[in-house]
């Protein structure tokens, strides 16, 4: 093993009594790609934030290239050659690539000279690492994959020898992700050290040399990637055996429950987000909509569920038309048997400052069983919430606890319990397992299959291709607001990936 680029010794960090990192020892060899994997809240981000100077450790030491380093701020980290690519890009949208890259590293009071110097340096970096980006392009005109490249260039421009990437593939198509991995390998070959934080086991296997697993603030294992398996890593992450593959029988589709015809939705600026989309969902089947985030899936869901106004088209729910104009009423759709687990759990599906029991009736609070005249029937509401907590194993089992204090997985269970227990005809589900830990994913997937087997029509939208493939009976692929193809779940990832990237769009249209 080569000399360690980074060595952490006994790092501990507490927030109040929450021990986010406990006594972590970690060695990252120079010139390797080192994966750090763990569930949400396992302490990955805290550890990297300590390394990058956002937080200071309560105890422990950091060595960079064998030298003890006090990293008190991100500028200390940059000075030591550590660069970070954040999950959410830190770019100024109406600035050019070059302007973003020199931002904060201008060096001189007048821009002219530093810009010229930066341009030369940037061109060298692009040449050396095969990271082509037009320095004069404005960020908001660039696709997400290129924006990420700008983030990497930003770090390299500041002299980073050690690059930390936090969940870099969340916004990328499979082919963009592959491209990113190629770049990472090339950076490795140039002698850079890369730390890759992710919760996707597949990526770890594909690109890393070594992998460390975190669980509940502790580093539980470090393995050489070639000597481990996906199953072993999953078990280390969760602390028990997990079923990665969902077991399900064949679908028995029944009547058409949800029919969408020529639906078009525009955003507030008048840009078409959903463009002439038509499809059907039948009772007893799960139809999955695959696609990279931001290709109109959110707008499609919101239009169907009456939250967002559609421009044209029609939707029928169990044979009856659905109002798509400004008079659309989500409450009316619920009465007619449409349940909706929204993509945005934090702002839409739940009111985080509410007590758990208050969220357990959100959207159904008009039902007589929760009311006594104009008053809320607090007892009935809490009893109902208690039942759901038991049935869906929501932890902690406290109906009075503020919803914000539940973990992501349990918050999602609160939403699922509320929507599924209404016994709907149609269940619309957006990103059911985003930010949810592996153990809860297993539970949620099982419940969705149960709903299907009970004869519900399920429409599933997810950016996780694995999830779409393992749950759906039919897969629709959405790109740039349009359905660009339908595939069976047996379709290969490569095939779906090409559709998601819009590559086969023309071919489809020609057919």
């Amino acid at each position, binding site marked *: 093993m080569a000399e360690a680029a980074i060595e952490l010794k006994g790092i501990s960090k507490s927030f109040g009594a929450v021990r986010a990192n406990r006594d972590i020892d970690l060695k990252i060899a120079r010139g390797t790609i080192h994966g750090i994997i763990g569930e949400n809240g396992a302490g990955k981000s805290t550890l990297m934030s300590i390394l990058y100077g956002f937080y200071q450790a309560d105890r422990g030491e950091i060595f960079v290239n064998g030298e003890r380093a006090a990293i008190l701020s991100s500028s200390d980290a940059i000075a030591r050659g550590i660069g970070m690519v954040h999950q959410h890009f830190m770019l100024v949208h109406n600035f050019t690539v070059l302007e973003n890259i020199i931002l904060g590293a201008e060096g001189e009071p007048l821009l002219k000279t530093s810009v010229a110097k930066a341009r030369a340096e940037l061109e060298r970096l692009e040449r050396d690492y095969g990271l082509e980006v037009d320095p004069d392009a404005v960020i908001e005109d660039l696709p997400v994959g290129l924006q990420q490249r700008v983030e990497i260039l930003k770090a390299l421009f500041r002299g980073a020898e050690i690059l930390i990437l936090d969940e870099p593939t969340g916004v990328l198509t499979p082919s963009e992700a592959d491209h990113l991995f190629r770049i990472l390998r090339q950076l490795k070959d140039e002698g850079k050290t890369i730390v890759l934080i992710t919760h996707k086991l597949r990526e770890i296997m594909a690109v890393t040399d070594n992998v460390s697993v975190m669980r509940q603030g502790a580093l539980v294992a470090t393995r050489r990637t070639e000597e481990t398996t996906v199953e072993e890593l999953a078990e280390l992450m969760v602390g028990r055996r997990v079923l990665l593959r969902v077991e399900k029988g064949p679908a028995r589709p029944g009547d058409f429950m949800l029919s969408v015809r020529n639906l078009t939705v525009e955003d507030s600026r008048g840009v078409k987000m959903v463009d002439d989309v038509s499809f059907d969902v039948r009772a007893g089947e799960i139809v999955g909509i695959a696609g990279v985030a931001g290709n109109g899936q959110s707008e499609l869901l919101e239009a169907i569920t009456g939250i967002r106004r559609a421009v044209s088209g029609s939707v029928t729910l169990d044979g009856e038309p659905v109002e798509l104009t400004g008079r659309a009423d989500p*409450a009316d759709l619920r009465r007619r048997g449409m349940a909706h687990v929204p993509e945005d759990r934090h702002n839409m599906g739940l009111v*985080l400052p509410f007590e758990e029991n208050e969220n357990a009736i959100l959207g159904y609070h008009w039902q007589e069983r929760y009311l006594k005249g104009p*008053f809320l029937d607090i007892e009935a509401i809490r009893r109902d919430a208690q039942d759901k907590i038991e049935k869906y194993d929501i932890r902690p089992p406290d109906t009075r606890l503020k919803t914000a204090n539940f973990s992501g997985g349990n918050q999602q269970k609160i939403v699922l319990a509320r929507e599924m227990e209404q016994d709907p005809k149609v269940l619309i589900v957006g990103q059911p397992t985003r930010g949810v830990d592996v153990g809860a994913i297993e539970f949620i997937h099982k419940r969705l299959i149960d709903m299907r087997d009970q004869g519900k029509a399920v429409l599933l939208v997810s950016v996780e291709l694995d999830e779409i493939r393992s749950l759906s009976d039919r897969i629709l692929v959405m790109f740039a607001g349009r359905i660009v193809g339908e595939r069976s779940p047996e379709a290969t990832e490569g095939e779906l990936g090409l559709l998601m990237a819009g590559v086969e769009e023309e071919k489809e249209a020609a057919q």
Partner: protein
Amino acid sequence: MSAPYAKLPAWADYGLIPLINLFVAFLVAGLVVLLVGENPLRAAVILVEGAVGRGQAIAYTLYYATSFIFTGLAVAVAFHCSLFNIGGEGQAYVGGLGVALVCLTFDSLLPWWLTFPLAILGAAAFGAAWAFIPAYFQARRGSHIVITTIMFNFIAASLMVYLLVNVLKPAGSQAPQTRTFLEGGQLPKLNWMLEAMGLTVRSAPFNISFLLALLAAFLVWVLIWRTRLGYEIRMRGHSPRAARYAGVNEVRIIIVTMLISGALAGMMALNPVMGDQNRLQIDFVTGAGFVGIAVALMGRSHPAGIVPAAILFGMLYQGGAELAFEMPGISRDMIVIIQGLVILFAGALEHMFRPTLQSVFASFSPRSVGIEASRGERA
């Protein structure tokens, strides 16, 4: 670790933090008093004695507090819908018109206990009507309610001056005010309550609308936490997107909330107009609408916090007047500074001491801040 700090127990959240903020406010105010060359300790003694030292003082303190409870509740109800109604001043002013019209019409016909409910309706209706216009613009057109309500304060002021000078002033009078209400338009005083406790009150405007204010506080609690409407108001307040998702009609909920808020602000007028001056005068609100913002902030928008906060501001008003009288170095403006400091620390800097306090709590009693709870879920 998105939420490094856990929650505080309720008693610390609603009790300890306001007390610490208040203490710091008085500490800084003491420095200001020191700066003008007076003894801050003596000033504090005068202020407290002037506010609660005698029966007379207590009666005045409670009289001021009555107005602040109404305006504080008005601001709080709007806060729950995340609307910042700073038009309480104007809504109360116009509410006074409602009170006066009822009293001028019925004071010779009905006894006070029949005029009173009509005056409550008049005050609420006029206050609500004044809040309706900004509410409608916010709900339908997205005009920011902070801007429109503050503008409506000025419009109310001009309108009332016009009405008092040109319409309501009795012929031959020089003062821009209505005639004095007869007995049927006068609320009974509550000074006997204090006297029953062994205090002496010479004459003070402390009247029965204090009880109405307490009742209103209770009803606001019921509304916000125990009714479907209140549930929808809070839902919209915390997350407009969640409200849309849940099928709550945003236009309706904004307008209804503002009508309730305006009605509560309007009811403040009962206290000075019908309970004290027995006539409608220019500028009778004297800033109570704005104090209501501070009261709601300090009371954390909860009626159980608003009532004590209103009494505290009543004390500052009453004790401050005494202080300005007793200490020549301290002018009326100094009192405004002290009130401003209380608003600054209790309202604007509300969260200043919270993180420190939270880590203190977390370090010696993790359970009390719900940390065990959020841990156990992963088990």
